[in-house]
């Protein structure tokens, strides 16, 4: 009863906050929309107010649902429902890479960009079938917790904790890049300042809230992400005379138009279709946009398969994704939350290719100039002459996407730092308060380090994020897969497999850094293609699994109590 009262009180307070924001938003709508003259460079007041309102909401939600003890901080007190958890999975998952990067990849690399769409959704099938319920049954808080316990190894716990931090780190870099781009677009700031401001805000609310706040925030963020992403595409399919009731199908005719070309002037129902600059809605025949692994995109069939495979396997090995299954009350909830999560994710993923298609059509006039691929979603809405406030909402959605993921990643990274390194290794006698403080210090250190690397602009958002996937696929995924499904996988085998994955990762990243700095190592071209930093898991993950199996076969078997626990608790 007391709990119910608390929930009702919180709900009333939240209602007041939302009503305030809704009226503020209506007030903004009454303002005269600024006429679009340039794609970026100037301060945009409407979108800026929407952004600030959104960020204030996140922080308030963080405060109202803040963590009170370590269990709340790490696993949201296991109070989240199936649909709620699904929304949180989707929000946590849909980062700047999904919101901005995916459309950017399709805009720049055509059909090969679809490898990201398929890779980032198909991995959930593996996650459900091979991991979700079993992880929940195992009953640990974090990925290193599972690995340390399953492989009865302190060393493996430490190494996997370090890799959890590195994976979260690599993932965050792309997000901070996306945040920087959107802050730059809205506030008219330079990229450096934009990244610094964005990272400060996301750090602030992650510190205040922990995962329980983050989970509530993620549900709100999901709604913002979906609404902001879908509205412009409904408007554009309607405006440019495609089947707008289901734009995720309606844009198919636009894909065909890109392939076949649309001659100018384009007059439909007596109305001349133009973009925001007044250019005709026309394009020269551009089959390279949709034809598979087109030579002009500089991509190949192998790369499509390698990227797709790496992303899929990486999905099933990402610590912050796996961690979501600890927050559901029951094992069956873990399974159904994947279905809900995937459905919510697909709502956005079905739409992303539509942005790249309209982006192609609307930017075909040479006078539009060269557009940054990572911001093509926002540019497309601008070029489609969508109301600037709705474009502002779209940018706020992009920031929400990045924020929700960063929050999850920072919590995963901080958990690995405090729970798996500090509590388990350095100071087992620490109090819950100390643990929480250590988690917060870990979050700050990681946030600052990510900000610095994000300022270097090492690649496109989706590409940067895919490094994290390949790392997870080579290191964490094999340990979970074999740890759950083969009792014969032992500590020595796990160590050998993990170091194989780390070795492949190290080679790929070393060659990437050397190549980026203009240098060359032996076999630079060969390694850069076959072990590319964006998809090295195509070989790294299977190798790590094979090595784990071979070494396990010839070394001391897994202890009886581990086998017994797996058989009785994880596999019924």
């Amino acid at each position, binding site marked *: 009863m007391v709990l119910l009262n608390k929930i009702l009180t919180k709900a009333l307070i939240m209602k007041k906050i939302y009503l305030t924001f809704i009226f503020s938003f209506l007030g903004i709508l009454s303002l005269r929309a600024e006429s679009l003259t340039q794609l970026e460079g100037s301060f945009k007041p409407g979108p800026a107010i929407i952004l600030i309102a959104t960020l204030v909401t996140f922080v308030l939600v963080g405060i109202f649902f803040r963590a009170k003890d370590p269990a709340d901080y790490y696993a949201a007190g296991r109070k989240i429902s199936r649909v709620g958890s699904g929304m949180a999975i989707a929000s946590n998952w849909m980062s700047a890479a999904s919101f901005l990067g995916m459309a950017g990849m399709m805009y720049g690399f055509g059909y090969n960009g679809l490898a990201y769409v398929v890779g980032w959704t198909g991995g959930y099938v593996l996650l459900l079938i091979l991991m979700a319920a079993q992880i929940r049954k195992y009953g640990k808080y974090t990925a290193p917790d599972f690995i340390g316990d399953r492989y009865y190894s302190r060393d493996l716990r430490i190494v996997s904790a370090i890799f959890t931090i590195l994976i979260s780190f690599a993932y965050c870099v792309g997000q901070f890049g996306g945040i920087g781009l959107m802050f730059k677009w809205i506030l008219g700031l330079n990229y450096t300042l934009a990244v610094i401001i964005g990272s400060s805000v996301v750090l602030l609310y992650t510190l205040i809230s922990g995962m329980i706040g983050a989970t509530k925030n993620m549900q709100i963020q999901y709604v913002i992400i979906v609404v902001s992403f879908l509205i412009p595409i409904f408007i554009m399919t309607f405006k440019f005379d495609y089947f707008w009731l289901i734009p995720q199908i309606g844009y198919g005719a636009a894909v065909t138009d890109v392939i076949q070309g649309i001659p100018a002037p384009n007059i439909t129902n007596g109305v001349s279709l133009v973009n925001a600059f007044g250019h005709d809605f026309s394009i020269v025949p551009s089959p390279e946009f949709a034809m598979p692994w087109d030579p002009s995109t500089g991509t190949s069939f192998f790369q499509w398969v390698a990227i797709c495979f790496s992303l899929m396997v990486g999905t099933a090995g990402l610590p912050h994704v796996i961690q979501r299954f600890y927050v559901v009350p029951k094992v069956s909830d873990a399974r159904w939350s994947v279905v809900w999560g995937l459905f919510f994710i697909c709502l956005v993923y079905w739409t992303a290719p539509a942005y790249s298609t309209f982006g*192609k059509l609307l930017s075909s006039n040479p006078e539009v100039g060269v557009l940054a691929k990572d911001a093509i979603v926002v540019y497309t809405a601008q070029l489609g002459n969508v109301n600037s406030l709705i474009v502002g909402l779209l940018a706020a959605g992009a920031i929400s996407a990045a924020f929700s993921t960063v929050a999850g990643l920072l919590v995963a990274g901080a958990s690995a730092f405090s729970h798996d390194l500090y509590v388990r290794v350095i100071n087992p006698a620490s109090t819950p308060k100390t643990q929480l403080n250590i988690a917060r210090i870990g979050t700050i250190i990681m946030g600052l380090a990510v900000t610095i690397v994000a300022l270097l602009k090492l690649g496109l958002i989706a590409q940067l994020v895919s490094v994290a996937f390949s790392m997870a696929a080579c290191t964490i995924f094999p340990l979970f897969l074999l740890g759950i499904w083969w009792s014969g996988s032992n500590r020595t085998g796990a160590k050998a497999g993990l170091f194989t994955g780390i070795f492949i990762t190290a080679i790929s990243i070393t060659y990437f850094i050397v190549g980026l700095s203009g240098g060359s190592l032996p076999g630079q071209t060969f390694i850069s293609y076959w072990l590319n930093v964006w998809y090295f898991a195509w070989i790294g993950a299977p190798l790590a699994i094979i090595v784990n199996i071979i070494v396990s076969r010839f070394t001391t078997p897994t202890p009886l109590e581990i086998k017994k626990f797996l058989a009785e608790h994880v596999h*019924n």
Partner: protein
Amino acid sequence: MESPDLYNFSIFRPRNHHGKKNRNVIFSMVLIWAIAVFGFQFLLRGIQKSTPEKALTMFESTWPGVLTGDLTPVNYKPFLNSLVLVKGKNIVKPEDQEVLSDAITCLTFKVIPDSVKTVLLSGISDLKSLKAKLIQDKDQEYLVTKKMIGEKNKELTDICAPYSDFKYGSLEAVIFINSLDEKYPESFNDISFTSLPEIMKLYLTHNQSILTDTKFLGFPFHYFYTAVFLLILFITLCIVYNILIEWRLKKDGIVE
């Protein structure tokens, strides 16, 4: 003492009837998933054919004549058209765009009469200045400069129309005018044009097959399959898996 072998577990060798059924469901799901995702891409790769666009055929049939200086409207207009169609693709690399712009400009100045050359050169120069100004301008000034650019584009398009066949308002005319430059190689035998045939081939040849040419709900079939259908399939697989597993648990009387 319990034997360690009693609790040995592997997905390939389940310990009981429930485990075997569970394994069969998992393997079936993974198989469907793998064939649907990768099997289709392998099929796409297997049946693809390198297919040229019409513009490549136009280019290849006129290029030898252009090289020898045989510039009649019968060969230079299709040639110019093919160059413009490639230049209009926004995937073209900057270095290739430069070659294409040079080719378009070189051809234009070869076919227009001397009396028009001076006017055209001055127009190109004005247009360039206006574009530079546009980057700096804000608000009202921006709109004025934009209008002036539009007028200049029209003027230049009209000057070249008898030789290019591009009418004002067409996308080709915009691409054409935006490609013209004050500086350009004098002849198509210039070393900078040696890469032109390769550039045209790169951007005008595509991997096509029955799967890419068939339309489904407005999409090319392969695009629909990958961008829309596979995602539906993933959700369906997840739902079916959950239903099957929960049915199996209930049937075997297992409480998780």
